C-alpha cells in the first residue's frame, strides 16, 4: 500500500494537507474545550491537574436546563412526527402547484431568522400569560423551525419509491386507506423518519435564536444556560457545561451521519486506488 501511496502526485498531498488543516480548524477547538472542562486552572493549563469539580458545579447549578431541553426535544419530536409525516405523505401523493406552494411555505421558518419568528410569536401570544410563561411557548417555536426538516426528510424517501404502485397493489387486495397508510406508507418511509427524527432532536436541543426571546427565567434551556455561563463565568465552567452538551449531542450527530449514509456506502469501500 505504501508503494501505491508514494506514487500519488504532489497535488494529492497538498490537497490532503489542506483538508487536514480544515479538519483541525473544526476539531481542535472541540478538543480544547473538552480539555478545559476538566482542567483545574486554565491560566496554568492542564498541568494544574485534572478535576471533575467544574462538571459537578455545572450539573448542580444547571441540570434543570438539561432536563428541560430534553423534554422540549422529545415533545418536539412527537409533534413533528404527528404533523410532519402525514403532511409529507400528502405532498408526495399530490404533486401540483398547490402542494408545491404548501411545501414552499412550510420551509419559510428556516429561511426567516429565528429572531423574527420569536418576535412574531411574542407580539401575538405574549399576552396569554400562562402560555407565555410555560415551556410550551418555546416548544411552539421549535416545532415551527424543525417541522420542515421532518417533512423534507420523509418526502425525499416517499418521492424516491414507487408509492403509487405499492398503494394500488394493496388497494386491489382490499386494503382501506388506514391499512395502507400504516401497512405500506409508514414502513416504507422508515429511513426518512429516522433521519428526520435525529435532525429534529439535534436542532431542538441546540436551538438558541428563538429560544433566547421565548424563554423566561424559569424556562431556561441548555443553549440559553450555555450563553449565560459563557458571558459571566470562568472559562472552565463554560467548558464543563459545553462538555455536558457534547456528551448529549455528539452521539446524535454520529447517528445522523450513519443514518444519512446510503446503504451502498456502508459496504466496505476499497481504501486505495
Amino acid at each position, binding site marked *: *500500500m505504501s508503494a501505491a*501511496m508514494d506514487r500519488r502526485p504532489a497535488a*494529492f498531498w497538498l*490537497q490532503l494537507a*489542506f*483538508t487536514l488543516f480544515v*479538519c483541525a480548524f*473544526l*476539531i*481542535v477547538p*472541540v478538543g*480544547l*474545550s473538552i480539555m478545559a472542562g476538566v482542567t483545574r486552572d*486554565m*491560566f496554568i493549563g492542564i498541568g494544574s491537574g485534572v478535576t471533575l469539580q467544574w462538571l459537578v458545579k455545572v450539573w448542580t447549578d444547571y441540570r434543570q436546563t438539561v432536563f428541560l431541553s430534553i423534554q422540549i426535544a422529545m415533545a418536539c419530536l412527537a409533534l413533528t412526527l*404527528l*404533523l*410532519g409525516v402525514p*403532511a409529507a405523505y*400528502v405532498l408526495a*401523493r*399530490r404533486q401540483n402547484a398547490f402542494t408545491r406552494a404548501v411545501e414552499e*411555505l*412550510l420551509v419559510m*421558518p*428556516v*429561511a*426567516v*431568522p*429565528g*429572531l*423574527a*419568528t420569536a*418576535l*412574531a*410569536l411574542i*407580539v*401575538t401570544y405574549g399576552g396569554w400569560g400562562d402560555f407565555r410563561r410555560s415551556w410550551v411557548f418555546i416548544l411552539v417555536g421549535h416545532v*415551527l423551525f424543525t417541522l420542515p*426538516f421532518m*417533512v423534507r426528510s420523509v418526502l*425525499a424517501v416517499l418521492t424516491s419509491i414507487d408509492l403509487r404502485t405499492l398503494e394500488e397493489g394493496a388497494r386491489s387486495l382490499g386494503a382501506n386507506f388506514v391499512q395502507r397508510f400504516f401497512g405500506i406508507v409508514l414502513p416504507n418511509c422508515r429511513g426518512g423518519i429516522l433521519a428526520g427524527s435525529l435532525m429534529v432532536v439535534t436542532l431542538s436541543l*441546540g*436551538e*438558541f*435564536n428563538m429560544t*433566547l*426571546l421565548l424563554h423566561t427565567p424559569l424556562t431556561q434551556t441548555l*443553549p440559553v444556560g*450555555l*450563553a449565560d455561563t*459563557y458571558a459571566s463565568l470562568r*472559562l472552565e465552567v463554560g467548558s464543563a457545561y*459545553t462538555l455536558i452538551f457534547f456528551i448529549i449531542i455528539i452521539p446524535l*450527530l*454520529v447517528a445522523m*451521519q450513519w443514518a444519512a449514509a446510503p446503504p451502498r456506502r456502508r459496504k466496505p*469501500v476499497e*481504501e*486505495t486506488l
Partner: protein
Amino acid sequence: MRDDRLWLVALLAPAAIVFIAFFLLPLGRLFLIGGSGPMGWGAYAAAFTEARYLKSLVSTVLLSAGVTVVTLAISGLAGVFLQRNRFTGRALLTALLTLPLAFPGVVIGFMVIMLAGRQGLIPDITDALVGERLVFAYSMAGLFMGYVYFSIPRTILTVMASAEKLDPRIEEAARSLGAGRWRVVRDVIVPGLKPAFLSAGAICFATAMGAFGTAFTLATRINVLPMVIYTEFTLQANLAMAAALSFVLGAITWAALALARTAAGSSVAAAG
C-alpha cells in the same frame, strides 16, 4: 384513488392549522406592528435611510457574502478532494469534517473563543512566534471565523454529493485535449458544481444573515443586524423598529434563497 381526497385533507390539516396559527398570522401581526411605532410605516424605510441601521445592514450583508465566498472555496476544495480520492482514514476525515453540522451558534461562538479568545490557542501561537498575543475573537473577525466554522460541514456535504455525480470522463476528455489542471477546474469542475455552489451558498448566506447565537456569545457590541434587533427589543423596548428590522432581515434572507433557487433550478430544494 379519488376517494382518498378527504383523508388527504385530514392528514394535511393539522400541520396547516399549526402553521397558520403560529407562523403566518403572527408574522402578519409583526408586519403591522412594524408600521405602528412613532415613525409609522417609515420604520421600514428607516432600515435603509437611518445611518446606524443602514451601517449594520451593510456590514451584515458584507459579512455574510464574505463568509459565503470563503466557505465555498474551502468546502469546494476539501469536498472534491474527499470525493475523488480513496485513502486510509478518508471515512474518518469525512466524518470529522461534518461532525459540527448541528452545533448551535452559541457553541460555535465558544469554539471561536477557544481558538482566538484571551486564553485561546492562536494567541498562544502568535505569542510564541512573534511575542505578541493576537486576540480577535470578540470582533467582526471572530464572528467571520465562527460563521465559516458553522457553514463548512453542511457545504462540504452538499459539494461531495454533487461531485459524486460529476462524470470524470469529461475531465479526462478535457485533459486529453490539452487542458491544464486549472483549466479543468475552471471550465469543467466548477461549472459542474455550480448548482451545488448556488444552493449551499444561498443557505450559507441566509444562515449568516440571521444567525445570532455566535454574535451573542462573542460580544454584544458587534454591529450586525440581528444584534441590533435584539438590542432594540430588549434594551430600547422599541418593538416597532425591532419588528421592521426583522422583517427587512427576513425579506433579504428569503430573497437570497429564492434568487439562488431560480438560478439553480429545483436543485436548491434538496439542500434544506
